[in-house]
């Protein structure tokens, strides 16, 4: 028997004004799976993630139709969107260090979730910073501004922050753009460990990264889900769709 999917997306369509950004996308993600999402610029990858945590609600011109279920619950109808967002960790492509100290950045979500115990907060902050491979570099200056860190460090700070509320789904949107290869590998190792506890959606354009991490890979093109298959199959010489082959083999940009 196939276990119930963790995330179920059915006929998801998004328009910004009159312009479509996603066209009837449907797929499911299993619990503890790592799903890579690839696709050229403007293909709707970020839009897809923003539908999932419903921050797209705040985009005035965006219109969304379709169904997204997490644990069989229709999240587009949920009455507690804050609770939903606390179940999802989101890492944006460019680091957004909130204008707070390193410590406060990571303690932000736990505090909002009502954790006030100092020891517990400190423990959590340390754990998340370690997971994001940042602890050793910042442990002596936890109370300086997060925005003073280097680009790559800030990106790892946002990863630590996304882990800080123990999400059951972790979304990473091209997280390694600003990070050097060695640190990227360290974080990838962490992701492999984390998958035991969470489902991971990984937007990436690094073929090797998708290959190293993802069980399955989805190829988005122009707002359309061209195909979703085992990662090896997508990157092989014989994916089901011609466009996938063209993209993964660099036939078009």
């Amino acid at each position, binding site marked *: 028997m196939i276990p119930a999917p963790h995330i179920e997306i059915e006929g998801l369509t998004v328009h910004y004004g009159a312009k479509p950004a996603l066209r009837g996308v449907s797929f499911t993600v299993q619990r503890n799976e790592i799903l890579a999402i690839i696709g050229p610029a403007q293909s709707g990858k970020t839009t897809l993630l923003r539908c999932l945590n419903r*921050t797209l609600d705040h985009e005035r011109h965006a219109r969304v139709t379709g169904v997204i279920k997490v644990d069989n619950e229709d999240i587009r109808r949920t009455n507690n969107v804050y609770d939903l967002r606390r179940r999802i960790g989101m890492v944006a492509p*460019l680091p*957004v260090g*909130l*204008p707070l100290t390193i410590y406060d950045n990571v303690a932000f979500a736990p505090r*909002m979730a009502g954790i006030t115990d100092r020891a517990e907060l400190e423990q959590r902050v340390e754990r998340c910073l370690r997971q994001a491979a940042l602890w050793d570099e910042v442990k002596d200056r936890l109370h300086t501004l997060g925005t003073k860190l280097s680009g790559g460090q800030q990106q790892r700070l946002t990863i630590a922050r996304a882990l800080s509320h123990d999400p059951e789904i972790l979304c990473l949107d091209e997280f390694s753009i600003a990070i050097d290869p060695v640190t990227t590998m360290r974080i990838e190792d962490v992701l492999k460990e984390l998958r035991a506890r969470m489902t991971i959606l990984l937007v990436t354009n690094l073929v090797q990264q998708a290959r190293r991490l993802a069980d399955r890979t989805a190829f988005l093109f122009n707002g359309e889900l061209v195909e979703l298959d085992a990662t090896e199959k997508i990157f092989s010489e014989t994916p089901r769709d011609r466009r996938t082959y063209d993209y993964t083999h660099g036939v078009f940009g």
Partner: protein
Amino acid sequence: MTKRGHREIIVEWLIESVIRLCGISAILFVFGIFFFVFREGGAVLFKDFKFGEFFFSTAWYPSSPSHVRYGTLALLAGTFSVTVLAMVIAIPFGIGAAIFVSEFCGPKLKETLKIVIELLAAIPSVVWGFIGLTVLNPLIIRLFDAPIGLNVLNGGIILALMSVPIIVSIGEDALKAVPDSYREAGLALGATRWQLIYRVLLPAAKNGLLAAGLLGVARAVGETMAVLMATGHAINIPTSLLDPVRTLTATIAAELGEAPVHSDHYRVLFVIGILLFLITTVVNLTADLIVRGVRKK
């Protein structure tokens, strides 16, 4: 070199010279004002000026024939009380309104509100004074059963109304300058609207918001006409909001015309000018230090 190259160099040089001239003349004007004020004030300041009386006496009898007194304590108290009351009202209202305009209202309402705020900012101060005199005065008399409605309360409210538009528009600019990615990040972490404002937007915009508040203070300290009309113009250390007071600025405005030029009275009014100048300098310096301290952290 080509002909075109020559022309570009000349045009460049011309533009630069004009800009430099503007800059230098601005500085010269400021120094000119300093010089003028300090020359008049200095003439009494360095001639056995009674500093003790000036700062600590409430007796302001500038044109008494027998015993002339130049004590500004009551005037200082007047300026201080009206300004503090105005800020207590205007800063929360102004920042609150800035948050509303920037974060809560739709684009249409936002445009309308911004126009209204600009209109409010453009109302001349005499008109505000007139409103204090004809609207607030009877209202305060009726509500508080006071003998007269021209007092600290009236002046404070009028000054608050005058400062709010400045605070709102600068505060709104400060909030608008907070990148949307901060909002997105805060929301993605599960922040409610209030948590987002309180924990992300206010810290991110705090320098701008502080500047908004301090410009409001500066406006209130320097305002003359409206407080002259609304505060009752009585030299008095206020013990309640319903006491009439007189401010430093109102004193200069009211007496400079009748004081004989170069008389001691005339010159002491300039010393008051210097005092006002010092107060605003201190406010600005404090602002600067706070902002810098905030940055360093």
